[in-house]
C-alpha cells in the first residue's frame, strides 16, 4: 500500500465533513437516548466524545468543533437539565468538564491528524525521491552500457587502424596509453615507461629526431607530427607516426594528447616499391647500355688501340740505330692521354651500371649532358647522325642524382637517334639544349626524325607504350618517374618542322625553396 491517498478515508469536501460531524453527534444522541430508555444507563459523555473523536478523525478541526458545540448543547438539553437549554448552577461544572474534555479530544485528534498528514507527506516525498533515484540509476546504467559499447568500438577501430592514443601530462610525466597504443609499442597498456627507457627503444638513426621533438615539447610548441622507427622487445622494427597537440591549461599543467599510428605496412610497401623502382630503373639503364654495346665497346677500344699502337711505335723508335727519343716521348704522352680517356669511359660506364641508391647532390647539368653525350657519340655516328650541343653557360646547379639524370639524357638521345633511322631525305640532326627559365632548368633533346602521331602523344610516357618493333615501352616511362621523383616534369611535342622534341625541367634547389 504505497498509494499516497488512502481510499478508506476520502478527501471529502468540507460540506461532507461537516455533515458527517452532525450525523455522528446525532447518532451518539440516538444511541444515548436508546440506552437511557431501555437499559437505564446514562453513557452520554463517552458516546458524545466518541462522536467528536470520529468527527475530528474524519473531518479535522472544523467539523470536530461543530460536533463539540452540538454535543455540549445536546448534553445540556437532554441530560443536565431535561428539556431546557438553561443550566442550573450546580450543573455548570459537569457541562464545563464535558466541554473541556471534548476540546481536549478535539485538539488531540487534530494534532494526531496533522502529524499523520505530515508523515504521509514525508513518506510521499521519500517515495518520489526513491523513484527519481531509480530512474537516474536506470539512465546511468544505459549510459554506461553505451559508453562501454563506444569504448569497444573505439578499441576495435584503434586496433583495425593500428592507431593508439596517448596523453602525457608534461609537468608530472604521467603517461596514459590506449590499449592499442600499448599493443603497438608492445609495452602493455599498464606499463608507463620512463622517458629514458622509451628512448632506448627508438631506432638509433631516429634518436636525434625524437629528442628534437621532446625538446619541442619542453619549449611548449603546440603541434607535433613526425615519424620514427621503434624497436619492439621482440626485435622487429616498426614505423610509427605521431600526431599530437598540446592541450593548455590555466594552471600551466599542459597535456600532450595525440595519436600514434603504426605505419609499418605502408612504409614497408613504400620501401618495397622504391626498391622495385630502383631495380627497374637500373635494369632499363643496363638495357639501354646493352643496346649501345657495340658503340660503347668502340669507345673503349679506340683509346686501347691507340695505346697499343703508340707503344709499339715507341719501341720501334727506340730500336732504331739512332733512337728518336722525341718521338718516343710524344708516343708515351699519347699513351697516357689515351689511357686516361679509356678509364674515363669505363668510369662512366661503371657509374651507370652500378646498382646504388640515388645520391641527391648539387650538380652541373651541362656536365651530365656532356658525359652522356660522350657515351652516345659513337651510337649517333653509327646512325649517320650529327649531335649539336647548345648548352647555356653559367647554368645554376640542380639538386639531383647524377646517374639517373644521365640515364634520362642518354635515353632521350638514343630515342632521338632511333627516331631518325628511317630518315634518308634530310640531315639526321640531334640538338641538345640546356637553359634556365624562371625557377627551373630545362633540357631539350630535338631530333629530325619521324615524329609521333599526335593521337599517341598523351600515351608517350606510359609504361609499355612503344612505337618500336622491338621496344619494351619502358624507357620514357622510367624517364618520367626519374624526373618526377626529382620534383620536375617531362614532356614532348612535335616540331613545327620534321621530328620532335623532348624536354624536361628540374626545379632550382628545391630544398632551398621549401
Amino acid at each position, binding site marked *: 500500500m504505497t498509494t499516497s491517498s488512502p481510499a478508506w478515508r476520502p478527501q471529502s469536501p468540507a460540506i461532507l465533513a461537516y455533515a458527517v460531524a452532525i450525523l455522528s453527534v446525532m447518532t451518539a444522541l440516538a444511541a444515548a437516548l436508546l440506552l437511557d430508555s431501555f437499559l437505564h444507563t446514562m453513557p452520554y459523555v463517552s458516546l458524545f466524545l466518541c462522536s467528536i473523536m470520529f468527527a475530528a478523525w474524519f473531518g479535522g478541526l472544523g467539523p470536530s468543533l461543530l460536533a463539540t458545540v452540538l454535543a455540549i448543547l445536546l448534553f445540556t438539553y437532554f441530560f443536565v437539565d431535561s428539556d431546557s437549554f438553561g443550566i442550573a448552577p450546580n450543573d455548570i461544572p459537569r457541562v464545563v468538564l464535558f466541554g473541556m474534555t471534548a476540546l481536549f479530544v478535539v485538539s488531540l485528534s487534530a494534532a494526531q491528524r496533522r502529524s499523520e498528514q505530515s508523515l504521509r507527506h514525508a513518506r510521499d516525498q521519500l517515495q518520489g525521491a526513491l523513484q527519481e533515484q531509480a530512474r537516474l540509476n536506470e539512465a546511468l546504467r544505459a549510459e554506461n552500457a553505451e559508453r562501454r559499447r563506444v569504448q569497444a568500438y573505439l578499441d576495435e577501430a584503434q586496433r583495425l587502424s593500428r592507431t593508439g592514443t596517448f596523453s602525457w601530462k608534461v609537468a608530472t610525466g604521467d603517461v596514459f596509453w590506449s590499449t592499442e597504443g600499448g599493443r603497438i609499442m608492445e609495452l602493455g597498456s599498464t606499463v608507463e615507461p620512463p622517458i629514458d627507457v622509451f628512448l632506448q627503444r627508438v631506432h638509433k638513426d631516429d634518436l636525434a629526431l625524437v629528442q628534437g621533438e621532446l625538446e619541442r615539447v619542453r619549449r611548449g610548441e603546440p603541434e607535433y607530427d613526425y615519424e620514427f622507427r621503434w624497436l619492439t622487445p621482440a626485435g622487429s622494427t616498426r614505423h610509427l607516426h605521431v600526431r599530437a597537440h598540446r592541450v593548455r591549461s590555466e594552471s600551466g599543467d599542459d597535456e600532450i594528447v595525440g595519436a600514434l599510428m603504426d605505419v609499418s605496412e605502408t612504409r614497408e610497401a613504400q620501401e618495397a616499391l622504391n626498391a622495385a623502382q630502383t631495380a627497374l630503373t637500373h635494369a632499363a639503364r643496363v638495357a639501354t647500355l646493352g643496346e649501345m654495346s657495340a658503340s660503347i665497346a668502340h669507345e673503349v677500344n679506340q683509346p686501347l*688501340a691507340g695505346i697499343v*699502337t703508340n707503344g709499339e711505335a715507341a719501341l720501334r723508335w727506340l730500336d732504331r740505330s739512332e733512337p728518336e727519343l722525341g718521338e718516343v716521348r710524344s708516343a708515351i704522352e699519347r699513351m697516357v692521354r689515351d689511357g686516361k680517356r679509356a678509364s674515363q669511359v669505363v668510369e662512366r660506364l661503371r657509374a651507370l651500371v652500378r646498382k646504388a641508391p640515388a645520391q641527391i647532390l648539387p650538380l652541373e647539368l651541362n656536365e651530365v649532358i656532356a658525359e652522356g653525350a660522350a657515351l652516345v657519340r659513337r651510337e649517333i655516328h653509327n646512325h*649517320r647522325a650529327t649531335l649539336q650541343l647548345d648548352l647555356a653557360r653559367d647554368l645554376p646547379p640542380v639538386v639531383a642524382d647524377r646517374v639517373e639524370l644521365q640515364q634520362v639524357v642518354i635515353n632521350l638521345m638514343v630515342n632521338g637517334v632511333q627516331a631518325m633511322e628511317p630518315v634518308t631525305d634530310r640531315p639526321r640532326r640531334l640538338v641538345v639544349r640546356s637553359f634556365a627559365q624562371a625557377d627551373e632548368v630545362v633540357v631539350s633533346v630535338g631530333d629530325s626524325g619521324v615524329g609521333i602521331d599526335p593521337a599517341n602523344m598523351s600515351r608517350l610516357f606510359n609504361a609499355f607504350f612503344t612505337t618500336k618493333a622491338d621496344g619494351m615501352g619502358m624507357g620514357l616511362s622510367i624517364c618520367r618517374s626519374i624526373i618526377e621523383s626529382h620534383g620536375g616534369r617531362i614532356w614532348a611535342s612535335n616540331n613545327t618542322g620534321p621530328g620532335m622534341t623532348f624536354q624536361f625541367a628540374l626545379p632550382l634547389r628545391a630544398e632551398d625553396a621549401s
Partner: protein
Amino acid sequence: MSRAPQPPATAKAEPIVFVVDDDPSVREALGSLFRSVGLQVELFGSAAEFLQRKRPDGASCLVLDIRLPGVSGLDFQGQLVKANIRTPIIFMTGHGDIPMSVRAMKAGAVDFLAKPFRDQDMLDAVAAAIQRDQQAREAEHAAAVLRTAYESLTAREREVMALVTSGLMNKQAAGQLGLSEITVKIHRGQAMRKMKAKSLADLVRMAESLGLHQPKEHAS
C-alpha cells in the same frame, strides 16, 4: 718523240700511307708507327679531307676506319672506285663488324684488321698494299709506254705489225696488203725498232697487251 704524249712519271716518288680515322688516338698512333719504319704518312680526320688532297705521284695505300662519321668506310670505298681512285685500302674495324668486313673484302679491300691490331700485322698489310699499288702503277706505266710507242707507228707499220704478230708469214702479209715482201720486212723492222721489241715474240706479246688481236681475227 718530243711530239708524242708524255707517259706518266715513273714511280720514283716515296710511297705514302694515308690514314683516315676520326679518332685522334688511333690516327696519331698510326702516324707514329708508320714514320718509325720510314714510311711517309698523311693523317685525315674524315673522308672529305682526304678527297681534297691531290692524288700522289707515287705508290700509296689508305688505312681507313670502317666506321666514319657522316659517310661510312664502305660508302667511301665505293666513292673512290667510282672516282677511279684505285688506292688499295686496308680497313680497321671495331669489335663484331664481320658483315661489314665481308662486304669490304668483296669490294676489293686489301686487308682487314680488327682494333687493337698487332703493329707487325698493320705494317705487313701496308707493305703488301703499297707493293700492290706499286705493281699496278708499273703495269699501268708499262702499258702507257707501249701505247705511246704504238701511237708513234705509221698506219702501214701498224697494219704490218698486226698481220705479222697474228702469225702470218711476211709473204702472206705482203699478199694481203698488196705489198712486196721486201717492203713488209722494212715496215716490220721499223715497227720493232719503234716498239723496242727485241724479237718477233716480244712484238707478239706487245700486240697482245695492246689488244690488237680480237678473238674473231684469231678464229679466221
